[in-house]
């Protein structure tokens, strides 16, 4: 058989294919995973609340720390500017 015939035979090999059926265990597996999901939904929301509170607390902590750092930085910047005689000339 030449290659062209082999190619066409391969392409038409799935013509009239029968639908694959699932194993008998699939239904019980799906049922189990759906049953497992229901009680978890309540716990999941509490987890979410906990995560949100944690994120909020971390945000507050970060913002507080950041504003302190800014002040220290601006003081340091003034010292450095004074050392190098960098003055704001826009007033003159």
């Amino acid at each position, binding site marked *: 058989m030449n*290659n062209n015939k*082999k*190619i066409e*035979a*391969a*392409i038409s*090999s*799935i*013509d*009239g*294919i*029968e*639908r*694959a*059926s*699932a*194993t008998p265990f*699939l239904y019980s*597996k*799906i049922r189990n*995973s*759906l049953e497992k*999901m229901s009680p978890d939904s309540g716990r999941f929301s509490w987890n979410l609340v906990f995560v949100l509170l944690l994120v909020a607390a971390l945000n507050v902590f970060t913002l507080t720390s950041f504003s302190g750092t800014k002040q220290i930085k601006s003081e340091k910047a003034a010292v450095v500017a004074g050392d190098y005689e960098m003055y704001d000339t826009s007033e003159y």
Partner: protein
Amino acid sequence: VLGFLQQPQEAEDIAQDVFVRIYQSIKDFRHESGLGTWIYRIAVTKSLDQLRKNKRRRMYGSIFPFFGKEEEQPDFLHPGIKAEQKENSIVLFRAMNKLPENQKAAFILQKLEGLSQEEIASVMKTTVSSVESLIQRAKQNLRKYLKEYYTQNEQ
């Protein structure tokens, strides 16, 4: 799902995921398309996601052996294939793995699931002419891959 993944155990796991997803999001179903189309869309999306994951795993496995050895996919024999077509279908399924995602999806939905071009367009959220073109290109590519295969294995 089995047509996409070509691994019965993995296909079963994904089928399970599909049903869980349907259960979780049935309340969001907006009746813009038929229920069957919506389910097919979830199944196709999940299958393509899994194929991408497998591809990434194989890629990392080939670069970093730490992530696992690169495993070649075993030959797939679809349970619905006629006995006399087994050998030809194994070669075809191997060639189908080389198709781009959207061509593979359109080809599988038409050939294995028996969907019409209109139904495929609805599942893939595209036009009928795009589906027609995808299937045409899929067949062209399959002919190319099969030609390479049969030329290499001529002896």
